């Protein structure tokens, strides 16, 4: 915060310098006596001098005032002329505050700093506002209006009225109105005006006006005004709460989509095939590393393709993870069908091997995976901020889900998968090559995990441990949603995501997560088969 402010100050100072250089000299000469007026002793005199400068309406005055309040102005004892001074070797380097022209040097004993107190500072602020409110530069006016709104100085009401009359930009005019309302609230104008002003602020809503309304509510002794302020406050707080809720839902949906992506492959291997694949997270990791490799190749060879890197990585990640999945199924899992606990252990072993393989190959550290341009940045929607990568991941997770549904429901392969999982001997006697279907189904689940890895590489660290972070969550989602039910996985993922984000503000991120885990543990006790349980003999053994 502090850092930001100081950076902002330097920015302003630079701007001021640039501006100074551009001001025509003739103009500056007219200002000279007024500027020297700043050198008179006494705060009251200083304040007057500031007022006189502001009254010129000359834009060149603004940077001078800025220097004044920054403490950069000095008066030369010998002729009481005013300069901007910066420390230099053997004393100070002087410049003309209006033109920025070099004015020689001075020893530190020869000049006095012009001291400002709060009253002067306020006068400066007000003066600068009035100057910039009239500026031809629209950005300046906007900034000035916003500043006036923040300060809400009653003395500026006439000025604001003046500016309002001239203002052509609707946005700025609205801000000016707000500034005026804020100023009225601090003035001693009649209650009716104040109440009207409160209405203006209330209509604006948002966090910005809360402070001003709270102040007036606290300070006001008048019943009607106080009540109006209180009213406005509660209404605004209510709206803000709604927005907060919406933001939480948004975060939750975002987390939910991540969970969905991570879990959806598992929903197939575990949910449909009944295979406990502890190496599932590593499939996600493989997908992420595939993205990394693709991006490396593109960076080094065809940089202009970078924005397409994810699109290229998707099919590759599917293939890599899917292929590894098929291998695992053929080499390990097929010998363990019907022994879920052993499958669990064996695939855990596979996960260790995959992790170590990636660690040996790519090193133990995080690898850099970049966001293509369309994945970076954010946009605003009402009071909400939505980042593009989060948004695309939500979209992507839903697309993957829909595609998977289609494959399972509409294709011959999907039909065979369901046939095999429901009645193996029957399917096999009807000529379905069940081992093939097993391998391919497992490959499909793994491939989808790989695809998820491409997406997750955009928001998570790509390291050998990437998968570990998802495995427990994925199992929780699948189990919570109901094993063997893809819709359950969808609902489960978003429910858990949103629940997590709603708990976070109250409990903190870690405790929120713990609470969700505990909740799921308890939930499984109540409904051992999850939210959308399949019933029937098939699940009872």
């Amino acid at each position, binding site marked *: 915060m502090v850092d930001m402010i100081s950076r902002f100050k330097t920015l302003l100072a630079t701007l001021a310098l640039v501006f100074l250089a551009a001001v025509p000299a003739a103009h500056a000469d007219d200002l000279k006596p007024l500027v020297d007026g700043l050198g008179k002793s006494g705060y009251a005199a200083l304040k007057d001098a500031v007022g006189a400068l502001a009254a010129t309406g000359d834009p060149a005055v603004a940077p001078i005032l800025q220097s004044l309040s920054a403490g950069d102005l000095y008066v030369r004892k010998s002729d009481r002329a005013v300069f901007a001074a910066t420390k230099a070797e053997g004393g100070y380097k002087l410049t003309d505050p209006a033109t920025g022209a070099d004015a020689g040097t001075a020893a530190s004993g020869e000049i006095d700093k012009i001291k400002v107190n709060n009253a002067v500072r306020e006068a400066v602020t007000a003066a600068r506002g009035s100057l910039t409110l009239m500026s031809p530069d629209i950005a300046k006016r906007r900034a000035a209006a916003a500043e006036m709104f923040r300060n809400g100085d009653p003395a500026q009401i006439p000025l604001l009225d003046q500016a309002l009359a001239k203002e052509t930009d609707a946005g700025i005019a609205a801000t000016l109105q707000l500034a005026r309302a804020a100023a009225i609230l601090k003035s001693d104008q009649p209650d009716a005006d104040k109440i009207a002003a409160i209405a203006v602020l209330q209509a604006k809503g948002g966090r910005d006006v809360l402070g001003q309304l709270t102040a007036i509510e606290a300070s006001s002794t008048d019943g009607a005004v106080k009540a109006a302020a209180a009213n406005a406050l509660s209404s605004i707080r209510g709206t803000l709460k709604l927005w907060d809720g919406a933001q939480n839902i948004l975060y939750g949906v975002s987390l939910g989509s991540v969970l969905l992506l991570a879990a959806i492959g598992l929903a197939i291997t*575990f949910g*449909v*095939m*009944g*295979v*406990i694949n502890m190496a599932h997270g590593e499939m996600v990791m493989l997908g992420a590393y595939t993205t990394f490799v693709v991006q490396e190749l593109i960076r080094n060879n065809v940089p202009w393709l970078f924005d397409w890197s994810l699109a290229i990585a998707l099919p590759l990640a599917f293939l890599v993870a899917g292929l590894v999945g098929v291998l695992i199924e053929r080499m*390990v899992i097929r*010998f*363990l*069908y*019907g*022994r*879920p*606990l*052993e499958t*669990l*252990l*064996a695939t*855990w*072993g*596979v*996960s*260790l*091997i995959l*992790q*170590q*393989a990636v*660690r*040996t190959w790519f090193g133990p550290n995080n690898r850099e995976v970049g966001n293509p341009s369309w994945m970076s940045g954010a946009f605003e929607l009402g009071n909400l901020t939505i980042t593009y990568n989060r948004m695309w991941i939500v979209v992507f997770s839903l697309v993957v889900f829909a595609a998977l549904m289609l494959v399972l429901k509409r294709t011959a392969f999907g039909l065979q998968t369901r046939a*095999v*999982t*429901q*009645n*193996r*001997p029957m399917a096999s006697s009807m000529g379905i090559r069940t081992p093939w279907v*097993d391998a391919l189904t497992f490959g499909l689940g793994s491939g989808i995990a790989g695809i998820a890895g491409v997406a997750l590489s955009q928001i998570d660290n790509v390291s050998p441990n990437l998968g*570990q972070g998802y495995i*427990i969550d994925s*199992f*929780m989602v699948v*189990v919570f949603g109901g*094993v*063997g039910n893809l819709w359950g996985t969808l609902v489960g993922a978003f429910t858990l995501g949103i629940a997590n984000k709603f708990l976070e503000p109250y409990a903190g991120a*870690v*405790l929120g*997560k*713990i609470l969700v*885990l*505990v909740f*799921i*543990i308890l939930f*499984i*006790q*109540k409904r*051992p*088969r999850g939210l959308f349980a399949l019933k029937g003999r*098939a*699940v*009872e*053994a």
Partner: protein
Amino acid sequence: MITAFILRALDRRTSIVLAVILGIGILLPVLNLATDPSSPFHVPTYVLTLLGKYLTYALLALSVDLVWGFCGILSLGHGAFFALGGYGMGMYLMRQIGDRGTYGNPILPDFMVFLNWKELPWFWYGFDHFWFAALIVLLAPGLLAFVFGWFAFRSRVTGVYLSIITQAMTYALLLAFFRNDMGFGGNNGLTDFKDILGFDIQADATRGALFFASAAALALGFWICRAVIASKFGKVLVAVRDAESRTRFIGYRVEGYKLVVWTLSAMMAGVAGALYVPQIGIINPGEFAPANSIEAVIWVAVGGRGTLIGPIVGALLVNFGKTWFTSGMLAEYWLFVLGGLFVLVTLFLPKGVVGSLMTKGSRKPVEKPIEDVVAPGVAAGQAAE
């Protein structure tokens, strides 16, 4: 009644095992203390500490085997009980530091001073007494297991579902203990111990005593397990493992049996953790990591589940291997070995080393593999059951 129950289990084979464990428990510390470092019979202290650690691992493995090998409950969360026991002991050791900590606060452990805490949280009361800590070492894991099991077994959560929620349990605890405001030292855990029961924790004699205590605990654990397994209760456990619903239809309330053995097993794991901590010198949230619990399971699988010697042998074998590997140039490849071990043992050695030897030595077939090979469709069902 209890003595009768315990003595009954003392057949020849059990007696031999107990004698061997206790013999080692006495012999090694004696060799460490009574021989000259240059003597070929000398056992260096670091070896003693290392082996002591293995013994506590063996006890942990035994506790996992009691529920998995004999009752079919595959716990992926026993590391949590182990760690809770460890924290119980760690808290005692922390309070023994007294004002010798960096900040010299006579009451508050260093990390609390660091966090600017003004007084000891209530749950640290009593840990200045060894007996209290010892009680907590048993009760904390026992209570957690009891509550967890009460819910889980009553609602008939079994198979992989149970495994997964045990894993979630230890994961949740991992997250919780990482938090500073839990009051257990957060990330860094508890460490810098000075002495135990008034003896310098670094002294050779103390190390020897801790080693012996670990051996004795392992022997006692083995004996108790043996007694449990030999009783009718143990037969019911195996019946539950083989055909849970059949057991119900004969009239046994399965959840009660599971709850008893689960709680007992958790307490054993807690004792193992409590003996582990003073020898290692630290306990931190990492002990709750799900990977640790699964590693304990693989010790049991390697040694042979459903036998009581198996887990002990497995824990020793795997950890010897780990030490050997990770101290050499091959350190990087240890995870390949461990991962390969998981795969190969489940595929080719489902009975483990001891189980396979016993079958070969063929007195009578020990056991069938726990589940018959069934088609995946049915597997989905079993997963649900």
